[in-house]
Structures are given as structure tokens and as C-alpha cells.
């Protein structure tokens, strides 16, 4: 505490906008102000964690960063600017409270003010790729892509993550959509029969001595089924499979392929001519 006070005093000399270290009462007021202002409306959560906005615990913030963010908001995010709605004293209390949520962050002592590395901003998707993303993640499509597949690890857990195909040609991707190879080399189709007479066929997820798990693709979304017991019969099997592309126009497919290629920085918007049969 003494070090902190000393450092705070030192900091006050070199940086006039830094105020004195907070008292316990001020910290509690700051906490209450935080609870009303920042954790209500379900943004940062009770004690800065556990709600919809980013967690504020154990971060590498500097006080200036917090002060600036609370005052001016963060453009491109839902974080509003509070400079017109709270006083300077309240702002100070909030900054102290938010800094106190990261007890191992040396920035709060101003001993080592490391610049916060800017968050890398992903290259924005083109309008066409965005339209494709909307189709990919559309949960109201009965056979929505994201029920099985993910893209950059967002989506379903069953089929392969499709960011890996970004460098393929539009025509290759189109072929994979209309004539999927299921299973591909990474997957095995099995039939399982348990001692008590249960059977199922699907994409194998896991097999140990005690458990067999497979994705039953006979309904959409596929159901992960688990079977237990030492005496299970597990045999290779085959399974017919097709992608349901009904309701998607050629332009929709072009948008979808544009999105599927977006992980490749060199990718461009795709048109139906790019994957039309020669």
C-alpha cells in the first residue's frame, strides 16, 4: 500500500491528471457506481465479469486507457461515451475500481505504463461475403450450413471447419457443395450395436472401451448419440449424404462461396460465372 501511495504521489507529480490513491470508501463508492452504470443493463456483469460485454477482470489496462474509454466510448462497439453523464470525481472512482479488478496488473501503480497493443482489426468482409455469412449462419434454414460446419471455429461441431478451403477455386468449392464427399478422409462412418439391442449409424466422434459416440445424420441438425458398455459391436458402414441447397439461387451460392473464401486475404467477390460448368 505504501509503495502504491508513493508511486501515486510520484505519478501525481509527473502526470497532473492522475489523482491520489483511492480510500476504501471511495473504492466502495466506485464499486457501487460501477454496479449501477456498468454492470446494470447486463453489460459488464457483477464485478466486471459474467455478462455480455467484455470481462474487465485481470486485464492489462492502463488508467488512461480506462479513463479514455469510459469518457469517449469505443467506436465500433456498443460501449457508450459517459463524459457528459458522470462527473470528474465519479470518473476517477470508476477508473480506480476498474483498475482494482486486475490486481496483478502493474499498470495500476503507474510503475510500468506499457502501451496497450492495439487489438488487431479483422479485414472487414465485403458486402457479398457478408451476405454469404448471413446464409451460412442462418439458423432458420432447415439445413443451415452452420448446423454442421464452422468457419474460423464459429458454427457447428460436426463437419470440417471450412476456413481450410478458402484457397480452393470457386468451382472446387461449388463441386463440394453439390456433391459432398461424406465422409472425407478425416471421418469414419460406423454402425454400433449395444448389448441391449440399440443400434445406430453415423459419423464416428469417439470410441473408447467404455463409450462410442457418433453423429446420427438421419435428421437435421444431426444428433450426437452416446452408447456405453464393454460389449458393443462397432462395424464400418456407409451412409448416403447430400447437402440440401434448396431455396438458394446461383447468386446466393456465389455469396456463400465468397464468404467461404474470405479467410484468404487475396480472395475476391465470386460471381456465378466463376463456378459455372465449362
Amino acid at each position: 500500500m505504501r509503495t502504491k501511495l508513493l508511486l501515486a504521489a510520484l505519478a501525481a507529480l509527473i502526470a497532473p491528471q492522475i489523482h491520489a490513491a483511492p480510500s476504501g470508501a471511495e473504492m466502495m463508492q466506485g464499486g457501487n457506481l460501477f454496479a449501477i452504470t456498468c454492470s446494470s443493463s447486463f453489460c459488464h456483469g457483477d464485478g466486471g465479469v459474467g455478462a455480455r460485454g467484455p470481462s474487465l477482470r485481470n486485464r492489462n489496462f492502463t488508467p488512461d486507457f480506462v479513463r479514455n474509454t469510459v469518457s469517449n466510448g469505443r467506436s465500433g462497439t456498443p460501449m457508450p461515451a459517459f463524459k457528459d453523464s458522470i462527473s470528474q470525481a465519479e470518473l476517477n472512482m470508476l477508473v480506480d475500481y476498474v483498475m482494482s479488478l486486475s490486481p496483478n496488473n502493474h499498470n495500476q501503480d503507474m510503475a510500468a505504463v506499457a502501451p496497450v497493443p492495439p487489438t488487431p482489426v479483422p479485414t472487414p468482409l465485403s458486402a457479398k461475403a457478408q451476405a454469404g455469412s448471413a446464409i451460412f449462419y442462418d439458423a432458420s434454414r432447415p439445413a443451415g450450413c452452420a448446423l454442421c460446419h464452422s468457419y474460423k471455429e464459429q458454427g457447428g461441431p460436426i463437419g470440417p471447419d471450412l476456413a481450410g478451403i478458402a484457397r480452393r477455386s470457386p468451382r472446387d468449392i461449388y463441386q463440394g457443395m453439390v456433391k459432398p464427399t461424406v465422409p472425407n478422409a478425416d471421418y469414419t462412418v460406423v454402425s454400433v450395436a449395444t448389448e441391449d439391442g440399440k443400434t445406430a449409424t453415423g459419423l464416428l466422434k469417439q470410441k473408447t472401451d467404455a463409450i462410442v459416440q457418433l453423429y446420427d445424420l438421419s435428421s437435421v441438425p444431426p444428433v450426437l448419440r452416446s452408447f456405453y458398455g464393454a460389449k458393443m459391436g462397432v462395424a464400418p458402414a456407409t451412409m448416403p449424404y447430400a447437402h440440401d441447397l434448396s431455396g438458394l439461387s446461383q447468386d446466393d451460392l456465389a455469396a456463400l462461396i465468397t464468404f467461404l473464401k474470405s479467410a484468404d486475404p487475396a480472395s475476391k467477390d465470386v460471381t456465378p460465372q466463376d463456378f459455372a460448368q465449362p
Partner: protein
Amino acid sequence: MIRHKLAKTARAWAGMGAFLLPCLWLTGAQAATTGADWPSFFGDSGAQSYSPLDQVNAGNVKNLSVAWAFSTGENGLGATPLVEGGIMYLLAPNNHLFALDAATGKQIWASTREVPSGTLGGVGSSTGIAMAFGLIFEGTRDNHLVAVDAKTGHDVWDIQIEDYRQCKCTTSFTPIMAGDKVIVGARGDIAHRGYISAYDAKTGKFAWRFYVIPAPGEPGNDSWPKEIWNLGGGSTWYGGSYDPELNLVYWGVGNPQPMLNAGARPGSNLYTDSVVAIDAATGTLKWYFQENPNDSLDYDSAPEPTLIDINRGGKVEKLLLHANKSGYSYLLDRTTGKFIAGWPHADKITWAKGLDKDGHPIDAAKTELNVEKLICPSLYGSRAGNHSTYSPKTGWWYSTSFEVCAYTKAMPIMAAKEGDMFMGGFIRPVRSPDTKPFIAAFDPLTGKRQWTYPTGLPNVSPLTSTAGGLVFGGDVFGNAFALDAKTGKKLWSFSTGSGISGSPISYSVGGRQYVAIPSGLQGAPATLIAPLWPEEAKSVPPVGSTLFVFALPATKGAGDAH
């Protein structure tokens, strides 16, 4: 001797009921059960949270003491346990599911599912499970619906509803059963198009999905601007109810998004802030009743739709009672959705002058861009997910009011994509200037208040009533309590050592009645206590996670003593 006394008391109660209700015969929405089990979130499919057990009653509840306790080893316990055939199933916040001997608390099995990073925190925990066909149905933190074998704790089937990282959503607080289907909502105060989904309970096969916002071309889509309809919210937060005779599922739909900026979405914004009735076979809309068109105050219609049957002169009226966070309750005909009556269940209501003959708010206040207005109740609601209870025995409905207001304003909205926060405004909650939090009993037909029990701080626990003439709940200081259902007088309390936000239940094993009350504060309304009541907040104990189970002292004749 004791048995004789109990029987006498029960008779006295029955007599009193008959005396008080000479021409009304009140029943549950479901066929009467013995009440030994607590097989669903609300105890029955009509969301009454009522136990027909009466061994523990107003006369002897003062003797209620701990039979056993079970600690989950976690922080917080908002879950409602289920009981069937002497086995209790309990869900703890981090996807931990336990099967316990309901008479002794002995653990039979525990099942754990990993919680991946980035899921919703405290508000993301499910607080309920459903049960049928020997399976337990659990909505998980990572937005899967999982069926677990009740005998072994093994997963049987598992389905991802939507990637929680994409939709920033998770399952409703509880799934419910509707015949052979398990029905589950989608939760999250975000830019999203809300829905209710149904899956075949035995196989996990997808059955239907009802979107609470109609798609272009469907009736009601024109109540939204083109740019925003598919981000318009309508979270289906809580649990619904089910009428097996009509085969209808009833669900309360949450607020539109952006939450506090109604100017950004001109139109009535169907079917947000509505109670919807959905055909359980097909998932199609049978009727809706919208409580707050074009809402700008976050007045979710999410609380439970309680089903009440009333027999007037031999004709059974099928009714539905529903509380809105706005402080008003609505009585509807649940066959047609027709509005019958509406009345306030809160004291401090400033946002509207009342309800008109069709149940629509009179002079409803709207937020203004960058201008703060004091609005009561606050967006935390007159109450939230802490469910009410309806006692067919007294014919009364018991609910809570927080009496919290908020300075509320709209703010300009920024472009949003699915899963983004979409507040469109800001609030500063404050205590109501001139009213205090309470629990009260109401005549559901007229709204006439029967008694008021001041709670000091907001009561965030759900309430459960019993045929023993009791209403059970718990306060933020950790006191489990029983109120006299007739008078509101506190008859019993027990300090559990951590605040209570989970639902009491009652069940019996071997003829002995138990009352289980989860201890371990959880949920958004509890976060109001520290900033708004700083003095009292000093006495709020740390968060625990223990289920306390109470019974009358074991004696000869009070069931199988342990």
C-alpha cells in the same frame, strides 16, 4: 396422535376453502396428482408452482428443520431441483448435474460437462431441467440441449441448438415437456431473432422452431422496419407452460432490440413483449397477446404463463395469468387469447396510466433520445424470473415486486450484427422514491390484493405454495421462509448462510413431506442490492451453493424416519 392432529388440520383447511369459495371451484390445469414428485420446473405443466402436500402446514411449520443439505461445490445455486420416485435431480451452475437420494441427500451419480470459455457467465446458467421417458433434459451453458439417462447420468443424445459464439445466446432457463417433445427457448439480451424450438424427447430429432419475429411474407413482419427485423430480439428467457388438452405451449416473449430505442424500430414489433400460444404438434402460432407494442423500456413478457381453471356453475373456464416486468398482470382466455382483465401487481408504476378495456397501456411512456426520464418499474422489472405461485386451495396468486425505478434514456444506435449488444440507451436504477419492495397475495380474477408482506430488500427468490396453507421463499440474506398463505404472516424461517434466488419445491418420500430450498444468490436482480441498498448490503453473506432440505422432525407416523 400427531397424525390425528394433522388430519384434523387438513380437514379444517378444506372446510375453510369450501366456505370461502362457495360458487367457485378452483383446480389446477392438470389432473390432480398426489404431489409426491416434483417432476417439472414449476411442479406441474401449468406453471402454478403449487404442491398438493399438506403434512407440513401453517400449524406445524414452526417445527420444520433440516433433514439434509447438499453442497454442489460451486458459486450460486439458482436451480430448481426435480424429484421423481424418491430420486432428486439437481443442476448446478457449471453444467454439473447430480442425482441424489431425495430422503437422505446421498449422491447417486454426478455428471459434468465441460464449460468452454466465452459462454455467458452467471446469467448464462440454466436454472431448470425437464424430465420424461427416463431422461433428464438440460440446456447447457454452451447452448446445447442434452438428454441424460436418469439411471446412470450418461449422455444419451446431444444437440447443438446454435453456436453460442455466433448467436451469443444460450438456452432458456429451463426446457419444458409437451407430450413427447421437449421445448426450449433461446436466451440473450442481444441483436438476435428469438425462437422456441421443439425436439423429439426420445431421439433428439428436430421437430419445429417457432420464430417470435415473423419472416418477410408472414403476417406481422410489417410491424418491423426491413433493416432490423432479424436482429429484433424477443428472447424467450424463462420457461413456458403446456395445456395437454388443447395441446398448446404457452411462452412469454422478451423485449425488442435495440432495447431502449423504440424510434429505431417503428411498428408494434410483433411478437415481442407478447404471450404466444403455439400448437405443440406443428409449432404454428395459435394466438398472441401483445402487452407492450413498440416497447422502449425492456418490459419483457418473459415471466411464466400460469394456467388456471375455474369452474363457474359447471362450466370450466380455461384461463392464463401472466405477469409482465412492467408491473401489470394479465388474465387471458387461454383457448383464444382474449383479454379478460388486467391489474397492477406493483405499487410504483409511472410508465402508463393504466390499461384500457383491451388490456393496452394508456399513455405509455417512451424513452427519449439523450433525455433521462425517471421510469418505474426499472428495466429489472417489477419482478423477473423469480416465478409466482398460484394456490388452487386459496384461489390466490402470490408474487413479488422489487419497487425499483430507473433514469432511462435512449441513445443513438450503431450498426449491429447478430450477437451484438444492442442497448440503444442507458439506465441508472434507483430505489422507488416512495414505495417499498413486497410479496403480496392477489385474487387473480380481480387483482384485489389480499395481503402484503414487506420484504425490506427486493425478494429475488421464486415462490412456491402448498396445500398446507404455506408460501415458501427465501431472502437475499439467506433466510428461507414460510408465509401463511391466508394472512402473509411469517411462520418460519431458517438462515441458510447465503442469499436465495432458487425455487423452493416440495415432495414426499415414504409418506414424509420435504421442502427443498436452494441457497446461493444468482441472477441480475440480485446485483441491484449493493448499489441501491448499501447499508443493508453489508449483511448480505457471501455466495454459496447448497441445497437445504427440510422436514418435520421424524416421529412414528410421519413416514420412514432416517
